[in-house]
């Protein structure tokens, strides 16, 4: 965490709201991404990210400066999303609400865009089949490159629990991969079938 961010935190604790707005501006993307990957819906992710920053703002006086601030923030987001998942139990996936994504190349290429969207929705479907905590562990591991210890701290689990959750999640992802591939291929094949037969 930079000195400037430490200063923003101190200013927020001193009652300066605009200082916390800088924190929101800085961390909006990682927080939103976690919420989006967890919930699979852009609108719900926006609400969850807003709620995360509100909770962080309220609990700022309890924040331990020894702990990395992004980890603390993501921990709030992860716990909130896990609770939301448990409340609704059945994941609802909206395919129409795709958020902006980082594209490696900005050149217009419709085929590439379509293929990326297919991959994104496929990954989203795969993630939606995992349990909330397993999903959070996978997201923190692969999107944020957290170590097993960091995941354990973020999700309030033991390191061995994280290891077993990651193992289970990887196995499930691998097993479900083929199913989603087959499901994706079927409509495509039907579309190309001759109507005369």
């Amino acid at each position, binding site marked *: 965490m930079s000195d400037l961010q430490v200063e923003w935190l101190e200013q*927020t*604790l*001193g*009652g300066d*709201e605009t200082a916390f*707005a800088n924190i*929101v*501006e800085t961390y*909006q*993307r*990682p927080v*939103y*991404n976690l919420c*989006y*990957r967890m919930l699979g819906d*852009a609108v719900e*992710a*926006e609400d969850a*990210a*807003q709620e995360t*920053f*509100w909770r962080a*703002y309220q609990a*700022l*006086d309890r924040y331990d400066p020894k702990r990395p601030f992004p980890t603390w923030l993501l921990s709030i987001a992860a716990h909130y999303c896990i609770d939301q998942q448990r409340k609704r139990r059945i994941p609802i996936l909206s395919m129409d609400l795709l*958020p*902006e*994504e*980082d*594209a490696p190349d900005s050149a217009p290429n419709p085929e590439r865009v379509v293929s990326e969207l297919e*991959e*994104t929705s*496929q*990954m989203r479907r*795969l993630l939606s089949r995992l349990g909330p905590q397993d999903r959070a562990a*996978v997201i923190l591991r*692969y*999107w944020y490159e957290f170590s097993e210890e960091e995941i354990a701290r973020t999700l309030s689990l033991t390191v061995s629990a994280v290891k077993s959750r*990651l*193992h289970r999640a*990887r*196995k499930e*992802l*691998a*097993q479900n*991969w*083929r199913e989603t591939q087959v499901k994706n291929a079927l409509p495509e094949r039907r579309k190309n079938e001759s109507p005369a037969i």
Partner: protein
Amino acid sequence: MSHQPFETWILDHAGLSMADRRALQEHLDTCQQCQRLQRQWESVHQELRARRMAAPAPGFTQRWMSGLAERRAQEQRKQAWRIFGIFLGGSFLILLLLAGYLMATSSPADWLTAAVRAASSTAAILNLCVYAVRTWLSNTPLAVNLALWIYLMIALCLMSLAWVLIVWRTSIVGVFKHETH
């Protein structure tokens, strides 16, 4: 046929020694199930490595700031209702205790006598007050009365202001808690 520890090794190569890798390869050469798992996991892993960070719609911070104002107003309303509830509950409890005490120490006839006595003595006191005010007004100059009246009004206004301020501060305690640091 046991697929452990090969299954674990397929899903996480980290920390595997050369001997482990050789053993895994030997197992993969003979086990179709593990071969399939490895192929599927490699596809998933490739997808995971190509992950992209989703971004919120533009104006996220502005939305948060306006949400903050709304949430604060909500918290203030909640706090005000909480205080109102505490006062109402407290008053009700005091009334209940008083009624219990009266029921235990006296009879309804005693209450009636006491009420009549209190009403008549209140009326007598009021009459005395009116008489005292009239005597005061007739015996003192108008300027003194006017000054006293203004003084009393100012004192009343100050006390009302102090009361409003106290209620306002109390109703938002906890909402602006960061300001106290």
